[in-house]
Structures are given as structure tokens and as C-alpha cells.
């Protein structure tokens, strides 16, 4: 792995051959043959308690007949009779569908910017390699109870269609994510890369341990509006919320996005892109559209959206390469968002600029309350500290917030940190986690609506 895989080429070719045989030359089909391996070693109470690995080949077929009758199917069966069964079932389903007048058709062939950037060592990582990462995290936490996981994943894909495209791509990813625990206080550290060798699990364990020690004997604070410094783990949730709910082409089509393209909606320090090549993305999406760096916000001005072929057609735009297996339902979402660094310096520097406010490590269980304003509610997790005169003065217990993510980044409200820290985050990526590269932020106002007392 993850060099081009002849088995996947053969399977993709076999499916297309079967499509032509069963559905005729006029059928339009896109097939993806994917080989995935996912291995994850979990630890709790400083011991490995779950340790899993799975490997599978999956065939995905989208078949359209009569210029707009479309069905999709997928199977983990890949033997010859399964290929014929897959096509027969998909064809039967497609023929029963009404013609979809907004079927966007297959894409035109377009050059890929790369074939992906898989790391062979990560793809070949053993259970012992992952256990070594866990052991390093546990040891570096200095005797505190620890919990978390080390994951390695690899994905190879061949996409072929009846329009003549035959694309190959591959990627790998690695994550170390854990907490250290002391007397009811948790400290977190996590990182993600395309390469396992990039992760310093010992450094992450040490950071989590230090955070936990600094979080003991937390006190409540009253609800109200506070200036905050959000560490990268917390910023990841904010960026994830915006790319999934605001820059998502389906949200724009549906009217649930409150984005104002071309206006100074955000602080000029905010520049947001989606960059698969810098992250762990594949070089093409599930429709075969090449993926490329997509500008979403330039100097505080929303300038781009993420689209698949359907939403692009509805918005009279070119597709941006963000189709996924779930984009019909949930919309096309950026998979490798990058919030550009600013001039705010380190987390310590950002905190130094707070007269009175909160330092927030992480956010948890965030859900949309009002879609168009992007109002989310959620809780803090893994550490909050009260800041006075630029100094941490006390750890704070868990807080509930209800806050517009759009308004939190308003002009004049943001200082962007200088150190980008890639974090794992779930954005419907094919390997479970996406990589979100963000710095810390200092925000003028964050609406705390509850504490441990209610």
C-alpha cells in the first residue's frame, strides 16, 4: 500500500464493464474501489483496553440511466459474482427512480494536482508501534491517570467512470489524542498528521499532564459575556461548525447559512481555506472532481463555498471538489480546513492581552440552536481558567455556552495566534477524522449561559 493498487484498478474496470454489459452504452456510471485499513489503540486508566484493526475493500457505484434516473450502492463484497450483483441491484433501483431534472451529469476530465501524499511507514504501522506511542504518552504524564488513543489509517482509491476518467489517489493519517486526569481535573493534548513519525506522543502526554495539574480545585464563575482565549482544540470546533453549517453549499441553497459573501463579515485577521494537499485529503472527491486549495475567507471577507456538482449547479458555480458519500444528505463540507496564523503569538501571549476573561482548552457536545446565525450551544471540557490582568488566577469548572460562531469572529473581535496546531476533528472524512489546522484565538466576547450549578 498505498501505491497504485492493481486490484482496485481491476475491480473498477470490472464494474464498469459490467455496467456496459447490463445497462448499455448510454448509462452513466462512476465507480470507486477503495482499500482501507484502520487501526486504533485506545487506553484508559493508563492501560490499553481496546485495540482494533480492520481492513476492507469497498466498491461504490453511482449509476444513472435515461439521463437522470440515479441510484447508488456500495458493498464490501468484491468477488466476481458480487460485482455483477452490485450492478444488477443498482440498475434495478435506478430504473425504478423518476428522472431527476436536476441531475448534474458526470464531470469533465480534469488534471489532478497530485496523487495524494501517503506515508508508507504510517500505512504499515504495527500494533507495537501504536502501543509504543501510548506508552510514551502514559509515561510522560508523570504518573497521572491517562486515557486516549493512537490511530493510524490508510486509504487507497481508484475512481473510474463511463466518461473515461480513471483516477488514483491515496492518503494516510495518524493521530495521538489523550487526556491526563488528576482529582477531577482533565488536561488534553492532541495532534494529527499524515505521518505517524510527525507525532510526539511523549510531548503530548507531558502537555496533558501539566494541564491537568493546573486544573485542580476548579471554581465556578457566573454566567455572562466573557472575553476568551480559545486554545486550538476549542478553535477546531468553531471552525468545524462554520465549515459544516455556513460554507456548505447545501446550507446556502437551503437558506440555512447566514454567510454574506463579499462583505466584511469577519475580522480582517481571519483567513480560512480548505487545503487537502496540506491535510490528509484525497486528490479528488467522490464525483471525481479534483480537490484543490479553496479559499473560504480572505482577510475577513467570505469569498468561497464548498460544493459538489449538484449544489454547484444550483448556485451557478464550478464544483469545488467536496462531494462525499454523505453530501447528498448533509451537504459538501470542507475536509481539511486551515485557519491561517496571525500576529497574536502564543497562547501565553494571547492570555497576556486579557484584562479579565477565560482561557478555554476544549469544547464539547456542541449543537446548533439557530442555523442562520450559527448559534451553537455546548460545554467546555478539559480545562478552563479565569484570567485577570493577563495571568491565570484560578481553574474554572465546566461551563455551558450559547454563542453565535459567526458573530464571535466579527470585525474588531478577533486576535489570531501565530502557532498553527493541527487537530483531529470529525467532518465526515473517509478515515473517521479530518485534520483541522488552527491557531489559538482571542475573542472579545463569548456568551456563558450556565455552569455546573445549572
Amino acid at each position, binding site marked *: 500500500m498505498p501505491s497504485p493498487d492493481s486490484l482496485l484498478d481491476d475491480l473498477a474496470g470490472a464494474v464498469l464493464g459490467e455496467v456496459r454489459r447490463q445497462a448499455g452504452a448510454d448509462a452513466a456510471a462512476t465507480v470507486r474501489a477503495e482499500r482501507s485499513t484502520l487501526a486504533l489503540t485506545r487506553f484508559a486508566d493508563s492501560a490499553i483496553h481496546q485495540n482494533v484493526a480492520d481492513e476492507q475493500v469497498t466498491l461504490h457505484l453511482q449509476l444513472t440511466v435515461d439521463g437522470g434516473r440515479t441510484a447508488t450502492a*456500495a458493498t464490501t463484497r468484491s468477488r466476481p459474482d458480487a460485482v455483477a450483483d452490485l450492478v444488477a441491484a443498482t440498475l434495478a433501483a435506478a430504473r425504478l427512480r423518476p428522472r431527476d431534472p436536476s441531475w448534474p451529469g458526470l464531470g469533465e476530465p480534469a488534471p489532478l494536482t497530485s496523487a495524494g501524499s501517503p506515508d508508507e511507514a504510517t500505512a504499515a504501522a504495527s500494533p507495537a508501534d501504536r502501543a509504543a506511542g501510548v506508552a510514551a504518552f502514559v509515561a510522560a504524564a508523570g504518573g497521572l491517570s491517562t486515557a486516549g488513543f493512537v490511530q493510524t489509517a490508510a486509504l487507497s482509491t481508484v475512481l473510474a467512470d463511463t466518461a473515461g476518467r480513471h483516477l488514483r489517489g491515496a492518503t494516510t493519517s495518524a493521530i495521538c489524542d489523550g487526556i491526563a486526569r488528576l482529582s477531577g481535573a482533565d488536561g488534553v493534548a492532541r495532534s494529527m498528521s499524515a505521518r505517524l513519525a510527525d507525532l510526539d506522543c511523549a510531548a503530548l502526554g507531558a502537555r496533558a499532564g501539566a494541564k491537568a495539574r493546573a486544573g485542580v480545585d476548579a471554581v465556578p464563575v457566573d454566567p455572562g459575556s466573557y472575553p476568551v482565549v480559545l486554545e486550538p482544540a476549542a478553535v477546531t470546533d468553531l471552525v468545524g461548525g462554520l465549515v459544516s453549517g455556513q460554507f456548505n453549499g447545501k446550507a446556502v441553497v437551503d437558506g440555512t447559512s447566514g454567510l454574506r459573501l463579499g462583505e466584511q463579515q469577519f475580522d480582517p485577521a481571519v483567513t480560512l481555506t480548505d487545503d487537502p494537499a496540506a491535510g490528509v485529503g484525497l486528490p479528488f472527491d467522490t464525483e471525481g472532481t479534483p480537490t484543490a486549495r479553496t479559499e473560504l475567507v480572505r482577510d475577513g471577507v467570505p469569498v468561497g463555498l464548498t460544493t459538489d456538482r449538484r449544489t454547484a449547479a444550483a448556485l451557478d458555480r464550478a464544483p469545488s471538489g467536496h462531494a462525499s458519500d454523505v453530501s447528498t444528505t448533509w451537504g459538501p463540507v470542507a475536509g481539511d480546513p486551515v485557519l491561517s496564523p496571525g500576529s497574536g503569538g502564543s497562547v501565553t501571549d494571547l492570555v497576556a492581552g486579557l484584562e479579565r476573561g477565560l482561557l478555554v482548552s476544549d469544547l464539547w457536545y456542541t449543537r446548533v*440552536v439557530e442555523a442562520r446565525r450559527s448559534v451553537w450551544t455546548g460545554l467546555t471540557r478539559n480545562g478552563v481558567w479565569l484570567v485577570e490582568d493577563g495571568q491565570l488566577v484560578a481553574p474554572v469548572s465546566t461551563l455551558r455556552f450559547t454563542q453565535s460562531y459567526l458573530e464571535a469572529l466579527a470585525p474588531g473581535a478577533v486576535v489570531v495566534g501565530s502557532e498553527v496546531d493541527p487537530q483531529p476533528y470529525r467532518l465526515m472524512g473517509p478515515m473517521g477524522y479530518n485534520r483541522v489546522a488552527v491557531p489559538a484565538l482571542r475573542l472579545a466576547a463569548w456568551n456563558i449561559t450556565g455552569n455546573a450549578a445549572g
Partner: protein
Amino acid sequence: MMSMANEPGRGGAGRGGASSAVDPAAFEAAAAAVEAALAAGARYADARLVDRRHESMTARDGDVRSLSQTTSVGLGVRALVGSSWGFAALGDPAGDADARRTGARATAIAQASAAVPGPPMELVAVPAVQADWASECLEDPFTVPLAEKGDLLTGVTATMRAAGVAVAEALHQAWDTRTAFVSSEGARIGQHVRETGAGMHCLTVGDGETQRRSYPAFRGQYGTRGWELVRELDLPGHADRIAAECQELLTAPACPAGETTLLLGGEQMSLQIHESVGHAIELDRILGWEAAFAGTSWLDLSQLGSLRFGSELMNITIDPTIPGALGSFGYDDEGTPATARDAVRNGTWVGVLAGRDSAALAGLGYAGSVRADGYARLPMVRMTNVGLEPGPHTLEEMIAATDDGVLMEHNRSWSIDDRRLNFQFGCEIGWEVRNGRKGRMLKNPSYTGIGPRFWSSLDMLAGRAPGEWRAWGTPNCGKGQPGQVGHTGHGAAPARFSGVRVGVRG
């Protein structure tokens, strides 16, 4: 009219149909994997060969928007070496050699786990069952013509669009899962579960806001039943109503902020139970095994049997034997027979959701709540059917007994902290309740609270009137790393709570 009420069950495994119709070759593959895991050094192993079919159809604004069919076949093997587990999975094993390779790999992974070992571990005893079990299904959802399904979904979305909403969507899903389970203790269980569900929703867009109405629930209603469940939902009979309500919400006054008497509909109660009780009683969370991700629990095992969780009206059961409920099965994914037990009795916490290893570690004598999302995922502690027993009141009586309150229905958003204490829920629609009468509609209703305080304020509980108590199905419960989606059931009826903070805004 929906008439899908499932009766609470208190029976044991085997209440479904007689035959699982699992392919004998699946047992051979699972047995070969177990043999290989033991030969490689495991002291215990089990294997599941799972053959799962899923169909999903969506419609939007009068057109079928997507039709997806997936088949997933593969082998998942657990191996225990010392106190360390390993799990390996392989899609579509080609034969005996693939099965044995997967079994040996599970043991090798367990041996790697032993590099960072935990405390000594045993498994609570379960009978080495050799059995077949199948869920009841009157009308196989996979034999219902796609055209009929499409007509249903396009019809209701067209109706809602014609009534003036901005977006109308509808969905149906069905799963057919056949599992061959073999353990090194001699268990050999075939299981065939069919699950079906459907739902619809619409959106209206106003000045800077969107409103949503769903039927019969956010993301639909699901059960271990056949297409008869969808017919009983009667989606066409509700399309005009939810479209009208969705438009009316745009001009309705906002839910006031403050502390008041809260009445919740049954569907919202099901999620309240799921989030603030179901997850809190998961033993792996209580033991800290999910500390880094799903979270822990505010419950302390030393208080099992004595802790006051809620009012006397609060009786929560763990019951995978309820016929047709989404969390029902004959045997869990460790081979433990489905058995009903209490979680909360008269307000006191008395039971947990447990697996064989977590129960042994906690000194408990029962397991039975371990499930996996397909062959490729590790079985872990999951909800089955965690539900509230019916109460002595009716919704009508609750409204009549309320001087000043808010009635909220249908979940719109949910959030709860990692100890399952501090929650905030938003609902799609609310109504004022004044002087014993249901009054004007309210938009953006929300409420917040702290679990045990909230449940202690439960002062009226419906379920006496026909249809008020239902086993609601939640098909999207996320847990685990790698992520797993669980299917859970929750018996629930409308309920009333006093002194609840409502109308939280950002």
C-alpha cells in the same frame, strides 16, 4: 393515525421468530477464526460473521433525491490475552485461511496491548447457548417495491412544498442483519434482525431565522419491525399539518425566558432519557473507559442501590425484549441472552448497562448490553431499550393541572456535558399552558437543567391514555473510537417537570 405503541416487555430471549436463516458457512468461518485465535495464544475468543444490508431513500420537494443500497459482509474477532483485548476485522473473508488469519491477528493485537496492561480481568459467566433468533417482521422492507417507497416519500414532500414551506424532505431506511456468533466457550448463535423506519420534515425561512417541523420524530421513527411500521406512521396524514405549523412558527412569539413548569412530549422525553439516563448508566463510562472521548458519568458505583436519581414516578428499565423496539435483540454481541432489568426503580438508581468484562471488574453479576456496529467494530457497552415505564396520568390531565407552563415537542438540538449532568435541549415547537389550557404557539423553545435535579422535579407522568407510551427508536447514537452508530430504543410518554429554566438564548 400512528398506532405503533409497543407494549413494555419483561421476557427473555427468544420472543422473536424461530429461525435466523444464517448461512452454515458463516458459522464455519467464525469457528475457524476462534480456533486460530486460541492457537495463537488467546485464553478466550469470539467471532461474528455479519452480513448486513442497508437501504436508504430520500426525497426532497417532490423528487426522489437519493437511493442508496449497501451490503457489508465481514468477520470480526475478539481475543483476550491475559487482561488485554485485541480485535481484528476483515471484509468478505474468502475462506478458511482468511478467517484463521483474522483470528490470529486478533491475538497478535492483544499481545501488543499487553505492552501497556491493565488490572487482572475476568468475564462474568454466560450460558454457552446454541440458538437461533429472529426479530418479528410482518412485511419485509426489502420486498416492498422501490416505486411504492418512492411514491410515498415524493408524495409527502410534494404535499408539504405545495403548502408553502421552503424545503420538504422525507427519508426511509431499512437494515437486514444476519449474524453468526461463535465463542471459545461453546456458544453458537444465529441471529436475524430487520429494522425499518421513516420520517419527514420541512423548513421555512424567515428574516434571519429558519424553522423546522418533523414527523413523527427528528430523523423519523424506527423499530425492529418490517414495513408495517412505516404504513402505521401514516406520513401522508401529517404532511399538511407540519407544513402549516412550520409556517406559523415564523410569526409565533419566542418562548419566554425564565423558570416555569415544563411539559414535554413523548418524543422529546425519549431523547431526555437517552442522553441524561441511558448514557449515564453505561458501565464503561462509569469505570472511566470512555473518559477521553464519550466521557464519564456522574454516577458512582458505590451508590448503586441507594442513590436518588429522580422522583418516585421515575421507573427506568433496560429491556431488550420489547417486541419491535429498536434496541431489541435475542442475544447481545457477547452472546448474552436478552434480559429485562431495572435501572431506576421508584427514583432510586439500581442498575447499569454492562458487558462481561466491565461487570466483572465492577463486581456485578450481569452483562447483556454489549453491541457492535457491523462486523468491523469492536462490541462495546451500548444502550438496548432504556425507557421510562408508563405513568398514572394523561397529557390532558397534566395540562389541566398546570397554571403556568410551557409544553415542548419534537427535538431540534441537544447538548449535554461529559458527565451527563448539565443538559440543554431545543425543541421545534412549544405552546403556552395557562390556567389549565393549551394556548398560543411558541417558537424556539429550549430548556436546560442538571440531571438528578431535573428528574427529581418530575411530578406528573402520562401513559394511561392509549398511545401515549411508545417505544421510540434512535438510529443515530454515536459512541466509540473508531466511531460506531448504535440503534437504541426508548419507551417514553409525556411528562411534567416543575421549576425548569426555559428560553435560553445566545
